[in-house]
């Protein structure tokens, strides 16, 4: 068990060393990078906005109904909501959602290339298959994530405004005051920093699971599931580490 774990970590690191090589053909790399930016980043935008909107609204409702008591000032609702969104939701939780959406997609796409010998075909031609396949995906994820996080924060706040306005249980002025109260820019930046690490984890770990598939369609499916589980756990683990490091 431990030996298998160490073996996997070792092969992961070796794969990453092959991945971070200079692209053999810049023109093709650029094309692929833009393509992945679109298919991994842009195609995740909708789900990120939708989920953040509802979470922002829900946080507001829950805090007001179940956490807040009449002796607390009203702005604490907006304040607590903002901190949850900035510190955890927009970075860690969104990345776990993306691990499910993007990670399984990457793992099964690359796994299929493996079992249909497309990766062998690249290797025989003399193409560095690890770099050719993984590098555009990793870079696209890492560059897309700050934007996704930004959209997540914005849409979470919009969700809060909409629910306060429609539900009428908190004035928009109180919410705005709470959202601005005692704002620490570092909380925002640390969320961005964490999300960069998580994006790298999602793309590289699911890429590893796909690249190392052996067998057929059953193993490809399993690689998809495993990549989601492992990258989600890793995201939480590094969340704990980074939070201690960045906040401590």
């Amino acid at each position: 068990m431990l030996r298998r774990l160490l073996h996997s970590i070792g092969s992961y690191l070796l794969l990453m060393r092959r991945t971070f090589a200079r692209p053999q053909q810049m023109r093709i790399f650029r094309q692929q990078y833009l393509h992945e930016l679109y298919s991994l980043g842009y195609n995740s935008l909708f789900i990120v906005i939708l989920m953040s909107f509802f979470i922002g609204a829900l946080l507001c409702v829950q805090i007001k109904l179940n956490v807040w008591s009449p002796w607390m000032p009203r702005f604490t609702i907006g304040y607590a909501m903002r901190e949850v969104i900035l510190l955890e939701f927009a970075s860690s939780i969104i990345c776990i959602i993306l691990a499910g959406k993007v990670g399984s997609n990457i793992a099964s796409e690359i796994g299929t290339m493996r079992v249909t010998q497309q990766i062998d075909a690249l290797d025989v031609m003399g193409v560095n298959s690890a770099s050719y396949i993984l590098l555009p995906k990793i870079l696209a994820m890492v560059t897309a994530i700050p934007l996704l996080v930004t959209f997540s924060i914005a849409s979470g706040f919009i969700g809060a405004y909409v629910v306060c306005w429609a539900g009428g249980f908190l004035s928009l002025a109180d919410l705005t005051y709470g959202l601005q109260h005692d704002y620490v820019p570092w909380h925002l930046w640390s969320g961005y920093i964490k999300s960069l690490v998580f994006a790298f984890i999602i793309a590289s770990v699911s890429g590893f699971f796909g690249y190392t598939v052996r067998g057929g369609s059953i193993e490809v499916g399993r690689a998809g599931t495993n990549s989601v589980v492992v990258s989600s756990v890793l995201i939480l683990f590094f969340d704990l580490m980074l939070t201690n490091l960045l906040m401590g």
Partner: protein
Amino acid sequence: MISLIDIQKHFEDQEVLHHISATFEEGKTNLIIGRSGSGKTVLLRCIIGLLTPDNGQVLYDGRDIHRLSKHDGTLLRQEMGMLFQGAALFDSMNVLENVMFPLDMFSSKTHRERLARARFCLDRVGLTDAENKMPSELSGGMQKRVAIARAIALEPRYLFCDEPNSGLDPISSRIIDRLISDITHEYGITTIVNTHDMASVRGIGEQVLFIHDGYAEWTGSNATLYTSENPHLREFLESDQ
């Protein structure tokens, strides 16, 4: 010419290849024949460098593929074309893009020249009209032909085919066999074909290596195949009648 010297390969506790030595000549269709599971694919993967043998050398006109520097290895690979058992076309690209891929990756020619070369290769395999189709829209035989076009795009000196007829009807099989054989002779390529299809052996085989349970048991020309005394080879040949 490709020479194998004393190739050995094992997986876990299973010896798959036992001391295989052979030579494959230039301008000829060299066949590796044997039953399923005899080790043909493993041997071919050792030859093209996708597997590293435990022992032995694979010499491409004197260059040992397993001991070249990274740079020389990449250069050698551009002289190699491979037709995989399942064609292995890139399913995110259409037919023309598949054939263009090795050119885009490695050729220093202009776009127009690369396009002309890709179209020439597609024409050579009789698929001019299919250039905008996706691989999933093609029949098995057409996929194999596209894969041949892709394999010859960079004008290889060495061509490898693993079970080129598997999953194809007899007519498509003969078309693929003819293409492989004609291309080999036209361009003087060293070609190695794995097969257990006796129709191919009779049709396009020139030099034959017979493998049984990982042992190279017989080698010789197609004409002397049926005069062999080797019991395993006789059994293999007779099963066809």
